[in-house]
């Protein structure tokens, strides 16, 4: 058993009862005659994984994904909890939509923590009702994909959210600099005849947000899917100066570079774009040195017909729920020798802490979220076998190490291999 939150890394049995962790004991100590038993010999038992950045597409775009299919993919990937972005149709900017997403009728296989829109319709003009959104279950606010550009609105969002103890998540992209762009700026973009997003389009907005954060007492900024060294350095420096800033990195940004776009593969098109090798290496460094709080997938399903378009016309985004653990173990643990507890922390306790979620730990009384996986098993990911409704992944056919055997969410078995 590996529980990054408590530092536990030893042989243990765990008992789940009424959706909670009821006991964690030395092997053979738990007596529960009527319990369903899962033998995890030779396997790792860890807190159910937590993905703080997914797009479940409901309401409104059920042809790409539904809450049921998206969370089924989450469960298959070892995630017991996911945070759902508000760029649905309509935008999740009301308590009604927030509640709708959490209703039992959605058939979710993992806990869904909705993230509310930071401004009405994510238009960046007028704040939504943060108190009402929080009351309905929203755990943060953001206009993900449509970053808040106006200084005064961002400042107001940080202030209002701080008073309610909510993080403000920003997709850091100065969209005034990125119109018509479809990949990372640089020689490759030039060669391919594609307009490029500069590093500065990301870092300048992060720097702007950090400056605004200084003006807000107890404010909390969470930077979504960081992709550039320059922005990461800004976060590192800000944290050192005492600001409450957290950040996440996606598996594709530590596993791939812009070279993957070659021949205009729309499954390598996402926002922020895949970057140069130096930026990829910086993401790796940030994960290893602790600057990065979380691995988050930015799972962004799109229908085949949407991705089978000219590169510049295809929508941004790739799926990621079923490949995150395998990539993290293969790259961070196997290749870069990060202790398994560290890798699991980036996928459970630390993202949960970053957004203040009550999960990601195997402590007594915590939510009964558990993942069991074989850390040694090598397997090949096949997009066609994905539980997600969409198959837009850059990792089709990749061999990875670390395979999920069982996922439990609030005491319910939601995936079993």
């Amino acid at each position, binding site marked *: 058993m590996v529980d990054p939150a408590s530092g536990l890394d030893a042989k243990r049995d765990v008992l789940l009862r009424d959706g909670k962790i009821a006991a964690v004991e030395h092997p053979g100590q738990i007596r529960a005659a009527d319990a369903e038993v899962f033998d995890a010999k030779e396997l790792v038992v860890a807190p159910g994984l937590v993905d703080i950045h997914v797009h479940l597409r409901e309401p409104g775009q059920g042809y790409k994904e539904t809450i049921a299919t998206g969370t089924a993919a989450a469960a298959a990937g070892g995630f017991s909890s996911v945070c759902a972005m508000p760029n649905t149709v309509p935008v999740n900017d009301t308590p009604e939509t927030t509640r709708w997403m959490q209703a039992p009728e959605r058939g979710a296989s993992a806990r869904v923590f909705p993230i509310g829109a930071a401004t009405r319709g994510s238009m960046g003009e007028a704040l939504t009702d943060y108190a009402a959104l929080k009351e309905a279950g929203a755990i943060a606010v953001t206009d993900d994909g449509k970053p808040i550009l106006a200084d005064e609105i961002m400042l107001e969002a940080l202030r209002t959210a701080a008073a309610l103890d909510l993080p403000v998540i920003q997709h850091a992209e100065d969209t005034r600099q990125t*119109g*018509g762009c479809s990949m990372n*700026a*640089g*020689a*490759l*973009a*030039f*060669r*391919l*005849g*594609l*307009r*490029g997003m500069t590093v500065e389009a990301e870092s300048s907005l992060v720097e702007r947000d950090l400056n605004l954060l200084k003006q807000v007492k107890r404010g909390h900024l969470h930077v979504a899917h960081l992709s550039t060294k320059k922005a990461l350095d800004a976060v590192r420096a800000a944290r050192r100066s005492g600001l409450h800033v957290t950040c996440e990195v996606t598996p594709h940004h530590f596993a791939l570079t812009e070279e993957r776009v070659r*021949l*205009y593969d729309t499954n390598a098109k996402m926002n922020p774009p895949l970057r140069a090798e130096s930026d990829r290496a910086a993401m790796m460094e940030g994960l290893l040195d602790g600057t990065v709080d979380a691995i988050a997938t930015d799972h962004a399903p799109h229908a085949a*017909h949407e991705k*089978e*378009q*000219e*590169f*510049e*016309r295809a929508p941004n985004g790739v799926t990621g729920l079923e490949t995150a653990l395998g990539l993290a173990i293969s790259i961070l643990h196997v290749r870069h020798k990060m202790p398994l507890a560290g890798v699991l922390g980036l996928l459970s306790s630390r993202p949960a802490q970053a957004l203040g979620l009550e999960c990601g730990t195997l402590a007594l009384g915590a939510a009964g979220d558990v993942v069991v996986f074989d850390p040694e098993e090598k397997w090949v990911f096949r997009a066609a076998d994905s539980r997600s409704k969409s198959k837009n992944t850059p990792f089709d056919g990749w061999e990875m190490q670390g395979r999920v055997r069982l996922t439990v969410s609030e005491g319910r078995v939601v995936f079993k291999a």
Partner: protein
Amino acid sequence: MDFSVAEVRQILLAADALEGEDPLRRMKRLAKRRVALLFYEASTRTRTSFELAAKALGADTTLVSSLSSSIEKGESLKDTGITLKALGAECIILRSPYSGAPYLLAQATGLPVLNAGDGMGEHPSQALLDLRTILHLRGMRASAIGEKCLCGVTLAICGDILHSRVARSNALLLPRLGAKVILCGPEELLPEAATGMGPGISIERDFEAALRQSNVVMMLRIQAERLAGLRIDLDEYRSRYQANDERIAASAPKAPILHPGPIIRGMEITSEVADGQQSAIAAQVANGVPIRMALVARALKGGKR
């Protein structure tokens, strides 16, 4: 530019052979084979020369353009390709405003796709006909093509490099044959990243300096349709980058002047230069047909599908 040097040589040799062949004999090469021209952007030279090339080989051609087809109703490139294939097209010649579109069409249809210009991406047939033009100007034959055949040639490409697929294809092809390519234009139209495309490419911001260093000059128009909000001071641009008699006489008095067209007289080039002794613009256009004959014949070789 996916061709190897050996393939480039073969294409130019085939262009010579086809050009010299008896027209009636040539007509039998692709008799009644079906070639579709799928054009999502306006074109005069490329479209006409591809069409004349296919017809000169005896193929049946059909033109589908965005303004008179179901493309207007929202049909995707994939579905348009599948439709053309179902109608018997064995090869599709594609012009698209989107970079990389030929890869998508080839993947969707399994047919050979000839790139007649894709967005800001590439225009390979133009680079090949430019190569043929340069070889002829230097009194060289296609059989001479090799990795060093253009040693001593320095081509200055001047103007809107950023939006130019012609610049990209030439800058990718010619250095592989030993030529040097100097790109020239203002920062907004020529980012520093351009030199990272490949070897043998450098940037010279000063037009006169670029002219003095080169022995072939290619002028490009400003692609107003792709500026995407970018504002260019046209008076300043003209004063710094226009190819006019005075400049050419002072800095490149012997260099042939190329231009892929369409030319905007009075903007990047004056009438005196476009129509002058050094202009090779008409030769470029004329070279389009034999090059495209070779490309169409190559795409359809191996018999009927």
